[in-house]
């Protein structure tokens, strides 16, 4: 029982990180119908920028703000310069461009920061809470509460943006029908840029949280996350922020049970098995009803 509780809590923590990553994928999918395979290396790049800030004497929080802002800028720039020419063309073109970006950004990070992994100090303690004498919840620390909380707040903020603001309305309209939205006076290009900028900022947050969780970074430290984040996003139907978060949490739980009761080495395979099963059984995601598309 104690193992189960510990695994469940750990699953929620890992899952919320997958969720953050899935959120970033969903934001881009919603606005441009592109799966951004470069998300991982973009997040690695912003996390390295944050580390540079910390190295220069800045606090974690300053570094976080810098990471988010550089994510915004990077996302907007990439959409404007690299993605815009392939938007609306064959889907494969966009996929290959994002794969190219993935390799290119990773290469640039390695050139600038070196290929060695280095330590990353999380903002809060990672020592698990002691529930009672002799029973410490290894997976539940102050840092993991920060991780889960940051993801939940981000999700709520995004839902509020999409549901309750004119800007969100225009972004959704652009996502559902660019031509029509344009005729109604929506600045569609601007909305797409904003979608990428927001996504990259959320990705930057995911990078910071993961770096804190695993306590190290390297140019490729986000690579496995691409698979997990993608599976989480597909679980949630690729279209809804809530779906992404629920998908991330479910995946985190499932994988943590696999890790605990089976074997660590099965994680990647388990994620892909879940992906295949979801695509076979419910290709539209777990929430493939109109209700799931509300947010």
């Amino acid at each position: 029982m104690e193992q189960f509780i510990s695994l469940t809590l750990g699953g929620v923590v890992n899952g919320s990180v997958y969720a953050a990553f899935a959120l970033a994928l969903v934001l881009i999918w919603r606005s441009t119908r592109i799966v951004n395979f470069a998300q991982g290396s973009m997040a690695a790049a912003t996390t390295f920028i944050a580390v540079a800030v910390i190295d220069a004497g800045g606090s974690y929080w300053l570094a976080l703000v810098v990471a988010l802002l550089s994510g915004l800028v990077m996302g907007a720039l990439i959409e404007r310069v690299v993605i815009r020419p392939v938007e609306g063309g064959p889907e494969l073109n966009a996929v290959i461009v994002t794969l190219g970006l993935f390799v290119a950004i990773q290469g640039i990070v390695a050139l600038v920061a070196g290929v060695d992994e280095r330590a990353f100090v999380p903002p809060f303690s990672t020592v698990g809470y002691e529930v009672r004498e002799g029973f410490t919840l290894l997976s539940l620390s102050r840092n993991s509460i920060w991780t889960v909380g940051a993801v939940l707040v981000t999700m709520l903020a995004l839902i509020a943006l999409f549901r309750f603001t004119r800007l969100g309305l225009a972004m959704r309209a652009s996502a559902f029908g660019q031509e029509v939205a344009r005729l109604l006076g929506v600045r569609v290009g601007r909305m797409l840029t904003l979608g990428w900028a927001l996504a990259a900022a959320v990705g930057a947050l995911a990078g910071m949280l993961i770096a804190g969780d695993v306590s190290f970074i390297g140019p490729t430290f986000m690579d496995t996350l691409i698979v997990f984040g993608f599976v989480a996003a597909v679980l949630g139907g690729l279209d809804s922020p809530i779906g992404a978060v629920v998908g991330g949490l479910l995946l985190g739980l499932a994988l943590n049970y696999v890790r605990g009761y089976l074997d660590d080495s099965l994680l990647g395979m388990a994620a892909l098995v879940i992906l295949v099963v979801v695509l076979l059984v419910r290709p539209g995601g777990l929430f493939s009803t109109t209700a799931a598309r509300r947010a």
Partner: protein
Amino acid sequence: MAEAPLDRTTPPPDRAPTARLEMTDISVAFGGVTALEAVSLTVEPGQVHGLIGPNGAGKTTMFNVACGLVRPSSGRIAWKGSELRRLRPAQLTRLGIARTLQGVGLFAGMTVLENVMVGAHRHARSGFLSALFAIPTADKDEERLRERAMTALAELDATAYAERYPGSLPYPVQKRVALARALVAEPDLLLLDEPASGLSEDEMHELGELIRTLSARMSVLLVEHHMDLVMRVCDRITVLDSGKPIAVGTPEEIRANPAVTEAYLGDDVDVAAHTTEFGSTRSETAPTGTEGASA
């Protein structure tokens, strides 16, 4: 002029229709194929102008020129007395022009109310950044948008569907919602592309009444197949055949024009047969509104 249900949306007097759309000598060629050849068309303020012709006559092309989707190879477009040089779809609403699409073109993942709110987009006062950051003003803005959208839905008797998703509604209702989305922008010129397609006789009749009512506050350019509707609601009609204008005039003049009948021979629409029974039904009396529109 408007009766009870329409009073709610009667615009302030300064928005009286004073706008004239003049399209002069418009020619369009698609890769060597001439779609339009020196077509001129003027929509007078406050008038309903019909654009008819057999299939392939160039009606839709002309319509798309009017809203900037197709760029003419030669010719001039003047709106409110000033020439439009490079009309782009995104500028339409700012110029006070709204259009509906041949299909319906509603955003599938957004509620009816949200769809209509996008149409009112250009009337929102808060700018891009304040919508993103200054929640209080954006809130009020949102409230205004919502009210306007509800008013437009009320005018089309579609309030009951506000929270529904377009996909779950019958086609005629979807068309009414699409019309509400165009009207909510309070345009000075409304471009209607085949508004009667897929409607029953009764619904078409109501649509005719509505268009007459609208002409009190805006000009209307109507592309339509259903000859009886066109004859009933239009002040003036332009007939196209094979990309050339063959007649312009009042419904009576068009009906009496032998060239028009000839153009339609072989087509399954017979002008004379379709129009005699509507000889003098164009109502000068106050319309009864859309209260009885079928739900």
